[in-house]
């Protein structure tokens, strides 16, 4: 059995002291150990941005790709080897701006991977521009007069495109976050976990204190039922999206790979590549 320490490597993250991403990294390492993974059976695929560096900070197979494309890479890895546990991760710019197309379609497709978005409502690595998660009026280097664009509500959006697992957390709630990541890893299908992970350098509005003041734990909402999509939507709207916990889970819908016709039960990576003569002759005969 591996422990969370086995998922640590010797690389020192280049995040600012106090960055929310440190806790997300720790929660991922703990969750991986808790669900019984070995480092070589985990692949962490990340995008570009401060948070995108996370794949290099975990002792596992890590792939740091291009901006906004962690999801298609991660789905490709999972298709190649269904025995691997695959986590995609990145920031809100990566997943909800440049990569939004992939986010929506990955949710629809429901390949069995877990997507963790470190949401700080700002562009950090490029030193402070607006993000699709920035609130209207938010002043940044690219919106000196305040943002005039509506902010995206990723959780509501996920529900409308057929998500089977939607959760949200706050980076300081290490225990809750770890449990949600575990639940996501155990979910048979696509799991989206949005984590409020404050940027201490460029976001002076959505601070740790701001989140503490504004977040509502779903466990405190009386009668909340995470299998009820309508309730999930109403609760999100009521709280302006600022809730934490498991928002929605559908355990009925099979994953993409389970729905595919004749898709190999053995990982594709183990298949014999030689096409035998009889099979080839059959293929060729169709052209004659």
């Amino acid at each position: 059995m591996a422990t969370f320490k086995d998922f640590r490597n010797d690389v020192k993250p280049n995040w600012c002291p106090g960055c929310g991403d440190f806790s997300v990294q720790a929660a991922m390492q703990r969750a991986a150990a808790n669900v019984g993974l070995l480092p070589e059976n985990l692949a962490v695929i990340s995008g570009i941005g401060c948070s995108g560096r996370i794949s290099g900070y975990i002792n596992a197979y890590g792939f740091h790709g291009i901006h906004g494309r962690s999801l298609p890479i991660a789905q490709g890895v999972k298709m190649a080897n269904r025995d691997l546990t695959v986590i995609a991760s990145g920031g809100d710019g990566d997943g909800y701006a440049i990569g939004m197309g992939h986010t929506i379609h990955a949710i629809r497709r429901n390949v069995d991977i877990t997507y963790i978005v470190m949401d700080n409502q700002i562009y950090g690595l490029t030193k402070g521009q607006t993000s699709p998660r920035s609130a209207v009026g938010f002043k940044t280097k690219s919106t000196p007069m305040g943002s005039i664009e509506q902010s995206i509500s990723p959780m509501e959006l996920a529900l409308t495109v057929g998500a089977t697992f939607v959760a949200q957390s706050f980076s300081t709630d290490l225990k809750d976050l770890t449990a949600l990541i575990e639940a996501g890893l155990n979910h048979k299908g696509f799991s989206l976990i949005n984590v409020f992970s404050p940027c201490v350098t460029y976001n002076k509005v959505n601070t740790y204190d701001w989140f503490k003041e504004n977040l509502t734990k779903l466990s405190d909402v009386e009668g909340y039922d995470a299998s009820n999509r309508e309730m999930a939507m109403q609760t999100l709207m009521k709280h302006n999206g600022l809730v934490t916990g498991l928002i929605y889970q559908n355990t009925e819908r099979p994953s993409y790979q389970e729905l595919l016709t004749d898709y190999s039960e053995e990982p594709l990576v183990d298949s014999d590549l030689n096409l035998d003569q009889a099979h080839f002759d059959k293929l060729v005969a169709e052209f004659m």
Partner: protein
Amino acid sequence: MEVRDLLGKVLHLEMIQTTYFLHIQRGVVMINQLSWKVGGQQGEGIESTGEIFAIALNRLGYYLYGYRHFSSRIKGGHTNNKIRVSTTEVRSISDDLDILVAFDQETIDVNYKELHSKGVILADSKFNPKKPEDTEASLYSVPFTEIATELGTSLMKNMVAIGATSAVLDLDIHVFEVVVREIFGKKGDKVVAKNMEAIQAGFDYMKEKMDANVPTMVLEKADGKRRMFMIGNDAIALGALAAGCRFMAAYPITPASDIMEYLIKKLPAVGGTVIQTEDEIAAATMTIGASYGGVRAITASSGPGLSLKMEAIGLAGITETPLVIVDTQRGGPSTGLPTKQEQSDLMAMIYGTHGEIPKIVMAPSTVQEAFYDTAEAFNLAEEYQCPVIVLSDLQLSLGKQTVEPLDVSKVEIRRGKLVTEELPEIENKGYFKRYEVTEDGVSPRSIPGMKNGIHHVTGVEHAETGKPSESAANRNAQMDKRFRKVENIRFNTPVYKNAPHEDADLLIVGFNSTRGAIEEAMTRLEKDGLKVNHAQIRLIHPFPSDEVLPLVRSAKKVIVVENNATGQLANIMKMNVGHAEKITKYLKYDGNPFLPHEVHSKCKELF
């Protein structure tokens, strides 16, 4: 060449194909080649008419070469399907036309100039066909629609046309029966019988109406061998299957979609699948993911898709992830001429993506080569751990033709330095040196799931374990290592050569589908008394200078024939082998493939 008709008059053929008329007897012309075209409005069944005609003749052992003229719309707009039938292998559309089947006046107006003086137009009486004044070809107004309607449905007008064609060719219409049964069998025997009746009716009508002055064109008997009849895209997909490809991610686009459509039907039988992604970027990056995961994977697109895949190609380059990409070129830029022939992606494929990466670009020139080269692309991608682009063009990808047998036993599977044995434990959780600086530049490759193979992969410049590094020394070491990989690339036949002359008057150079037109032009130029060599470049990058330079040196003149406006291959040749003073270009970028006579006359102009 002088040919006399049955009345002893000299026939003037606008363009004379190689060994066109064999001999002429009373009322009958024996031919070893036929050029037949059917045209009408898109959505009228023009394609299936051509298909039935072609499949039946292919089964008789003839060699066929088809080219479809179509527009980027589903219904309406002129479309035609030109099919060349021959007793020997053909790889180009023909210069002229023997029979034109027209379902509307536009078909006549657009195509009649291709008909030679003894050509025949078979037109539907329904639109009251008019023969243009400046043609000696004969026109027959045949009640295609009327006969079909009388037999039950106007949909069968195509069958009537096939029957009328058979009369002109004195072809036994029973050759169509098996094909008609294959297509309509599901709808029951009655439908099959009705369609055969329609063919018979067209045949009978035409036999009776044929003017005694128009000789029946009888095709010399073919060898009766069953051969494949396929498009280049079929061969590409088949090549991927033969190479052990198990996954494809792609986004629909003309003229590449056939590859994904074929593989989605065939991959499940070997446990694999195709994902139709949300866009081309996802297609490329998902393919990279699958390949990183250890599976042979492919993506295919055309120019617009390749433009979107460029950043991903750079990622595969710096992360040394094997990546096989097909680019079926079409008319560009932007949406350009989406259903027309062009070869203008060459430079983009060689240099595309920002920064510098090692890359392999191959350009098969026949359907057979498309099969073997695609299969080989998977080997090269894994051996050199870099992107491999299989370049095709619309004419090669969509031109349906008879293909000599493919030998799957010739397809090797070589996976390069993929780790296959258990790896030793690394102390202190150290990372596996996935980017180890080696003599040949290729590093051992572990894949996720392998114990002791953990390493990092990043598009950021990195050190041997994959961890980011910006040090100047490391940068040099890694850049040099990556480029070292392709310095001595082994590629079976980088250049297709037909170079019989040590001192040639002319060297003709092309790539992809121009091969057939060049070959025919070469035969005619040789007959004209010129010494001609031909080189079709199959490995575009890294450029096979060692193979090309001697050919350029030994030729008095060099002409590069390509479907683009700037002479991209000619420029690449000049960059790599010099001799700029003797390299000329013959360029065509109007959306149509080269015809043999065009290449022939252009080359003659040089002398």
